[in-house]
């Protein structure tokens, strides 16, 4: 189906291209400038390039071992605080991600609180205690102080990996008999790996760039940021050389063709979706969770500028139509899937569209609710005399809802007709099979009798010549005296009938016989083929049979 999303304007693309070039050039120039500065021994104004190149910046930075020591301290602190944060964050993220808490906001707020406060403030506050505990100036003190800021990021990033999808996968692993450790190794960790990597990288970077806490906790054991700052104003080459070390971890559908016409209006890409007067109900309800039920229903009226009172009154009427009159002021989250789809249907009708498009509207609804919704759609359709286009894979649903049915196979409409025609008089073998007429008999008609390939005759009438006939399983009966015979290979109870599978050589036939019919698997039975239920495929249909079989 062609999507109704409007085409993005050329202007926006041009601006986006220009912005991309500017951002790209800015990044390239910035990195280039840093490299040039880092390897400039002498670079006096106003020259655009250094007078002398060399490694003076690195030599000064590493003289006396300060830079090497700072690098080791930064790496060790970053690694230790990252590991600690991930270990602590994992269980918390699981609980928060699976939304098992009644009031998660308080937990989120508590965990995110350190992000709202200046790192230097936390550093000064902690230094008061660390001094007494002998942690001031130590690597442990640095790791603990960094953990205050790293842990919230680790939890926030990890919890995105512990959603309902992960829960479902782990349930599947449990059902498959995997132990806790097997589920962890084969399900949880592999699925979570990208999130875990992102959380680890972010955690490390938060620690790597900490300045305020490091200054307060361990001024005599500098990390890389503490070492860089004094050089920024006094010796830019050294600052640039040290900054290069800093960079290391960081490097680590529209309508496209064809036309759509509705009445005398042509709906192509030039007509924006909101002006087409076509309402759509999708497979999933797509309700706006921040609006109450009646506000969702009245969205089209809101778009048209109607006042709140009018919107709510109209929504109430439509909700009554779909059997949800009492739920107008509810939040959509509390509704069942079937109720949500009813709301979506009411919403689609609210704008009084010229065409209602139902895109598999019942596919995501529980089977026991599907029947009620189907009846509702038929009632609304009849009452409102609204042109409705429904897309479905369910042939029974199609037959029940539509007065004209078009079968699309491989992107082409292969037959468009009354539903009864498609079921009982298919134009090709493919159409026949799609609608369940799986029995195809090929042979030659002579004197009104079909001489079936592989032996046997059936009275069919019609002109002489090669022919293919189809018969639906429910029309094919078992008759001990039938001239056409086949071997029963399967018989299975199917609720309201017995499904019998028969073989004639390589040909497979299927019959749906009444409950209580005596069927002996392995024995050969005669077939009953009522002449009025046999349908001779047209000539092109016969070609389709011979190609397809």
């Amino acid at each position, binding site marked *: 189906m062609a999507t*109704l*999303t409007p085409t993005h304007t050329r202007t926006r693309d041009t601006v986006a291209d220009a912005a991309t070039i500017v951002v790209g050039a800015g990044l390239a120039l910035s990195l280039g400038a840093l490299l040039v500065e880092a390897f400039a021994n002498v670079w006096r104004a106003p020259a655009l390039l250094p007078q002398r190149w060399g490694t003076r910046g690195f030599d000064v930075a590493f003289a006396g071992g300060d830079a090497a020591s700072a690098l080791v301290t930064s790496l060790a602190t970053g690694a230790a605080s990252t590991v600690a944060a991930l270990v602590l964050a994992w*269980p*918390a993220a699981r609980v928060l991600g699976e939304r098992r808490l009644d009031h998660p906001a308080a937990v989120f707020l508590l965990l995110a609180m350190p992000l709202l406060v*200046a790192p230097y403030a936390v550093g000064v506050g*902690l230094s008061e205690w660390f001094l007494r505990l002998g942690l001031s100036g130590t690597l442990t003190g640095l790791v603990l102080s960094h953990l205050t800021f790293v842990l919230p990021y680790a939890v926030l990033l990890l919890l995105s990996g512990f959603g309902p999808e992960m829960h479902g996968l782990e349930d599947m692993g449990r059902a498959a008999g995997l132990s806790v450790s097997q589920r962890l190794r084969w399900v949880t960790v592999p699925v979570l790996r990208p999130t875990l990597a992102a959380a680890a990288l*972010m955690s490390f970077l938060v620690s790597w760039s900490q300045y305020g806490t490091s200054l307060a906790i361990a001024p005599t054991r500098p990390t890389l940021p503490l070492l860089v700052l004094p050089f*920024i104003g006094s010796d830019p080459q050294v600052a640039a050389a040290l900054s290069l070390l800093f960079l290391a971890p960081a490097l680590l559908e529209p309508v496209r063709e064809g036309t759509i016409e509705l009445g005398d209006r042509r709906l192509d890409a030039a007509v924006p979706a909101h002006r087409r007067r076509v309402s759509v109900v999708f497979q999933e309800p797509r309700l706006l969770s921040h609006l109450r039920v009646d506000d969702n229903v009245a969205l089209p009226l*809101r778009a048209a500028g109607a006042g709140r009172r009018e919107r709510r009154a109209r929504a109430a009427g439509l909700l009554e139509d779909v059997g949800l009159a009492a739920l107008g002021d509810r939040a959509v989250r509390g509704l069942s899937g079937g109720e949500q789809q009813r709301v979506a249907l009411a919403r689609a009708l609210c704008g009084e569209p010229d065409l209602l498009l139902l895109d598999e509207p019942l596919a995501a609804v529980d089977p026991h609710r599907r029947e009620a919704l189907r009846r509702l759609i038929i009632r609304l359709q009849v009452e409102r005399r609204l042109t409705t286009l429904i897309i479905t894979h369910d042939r029974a649903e199609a037959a029940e809802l539509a007065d004209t049915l078009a079968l699309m196979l491989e992107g082409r409409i292969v037959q468009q007709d009354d539903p009864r025609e498609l079921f009982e008089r298919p134009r090709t073998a493919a159409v026949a099979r799609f609608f369940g007429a799986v029995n195809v008999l090929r042979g030659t008609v002579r004197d009104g009798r079909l001489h079936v390939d592989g032996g046997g005759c059936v009275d069919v009438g019609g002109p002489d010549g090669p022919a293919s006939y189809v018969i639906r399983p429910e029309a094919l009966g078992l008759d001990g005296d039938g001239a056409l015979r086949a071997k029963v290979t399967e018989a299975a109870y199917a609720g309201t009938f017995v499904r019998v599978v028969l073989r004639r050589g390589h040909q497979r036939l299927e019959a749906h016989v009444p409950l209580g019919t005596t069927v002996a698997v392995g024995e050969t039975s005669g077939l009953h083929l009522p002449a009025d239920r046999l349908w001779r495929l047209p000539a092109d249909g016969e070609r389709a049979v011979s190609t397809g079989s």
Partner: protein
Amino acid sequence: MTARRARDLGLLAPAILTVAVLFGGALAGIVRTSLVPLGGGASLAAWRALLGDPDFAAALVFTLRVTVVSTVLAAIVGLVGAALLRDRGSALRAMLALPVPVPHLLVATLAVLWLAPGGIAERALGGLPVDLVRDRAGLGVTLVYVVKEAPFLALLVLAACGRDLRAREEVAAVLGSGPWQRMRWVTWPAIRGPLVIGSIIVAAYAAGSFEVPLAIGPNYPPTLATFAYEATQGDVIAGQGEAAAALLLTSALSMFLALVAVRFARDVEGG
């Protein structure tokens, strides 16, 4: 309490206790330092000295201005960037993400290299119309925050603009909502949360940041964080108390801005 709930609390406990002990300890420590100077009894001397210091008032105003301006500008640039890149490929998004993990200090270093008197921009252009390094208005500090934080906010917004949002926009469109209506009723409610939370983090960082104002900011007025740092460089005993008091106020300012932002986000419910 059910076994399930007890188990959930048990799983949450390590992270919550760690944050509570470290962050709560830090707050308690800083309150104590502001009230009990080294070697002395409890007094409000540090608070009196702070509130009577004209430099503190200047630092407060300067910090507020830089914080609000840089956060608002970063949010606007981030939103525009997200709108332009929404339908673009992952390569462009990766390019946008590049500045996010880069430390603030590195961006400040680059700003000095480019924008300082005698820097690359001045050499290439023969002069800049405004001073951006060590300027009293704090333009350089603001610029660094915007360059550094706008991509962060853009990525947060883009993360909220997934397929689900596209589907809802599609529904709103076929139900007759124009582009502006879709923005107000569908897109904005979806991106508002991440944008506000991101902006709070940006504002909190800008209000309490230390290294960027030290690297590129003016000598006067200081920000609250640099004011606190400088207070510790003179009289250690009195300075520690005054620094702690200033930092407490900085933290309170960040939290106040966060509350205002959350309140604002609730009030602008579409319609």
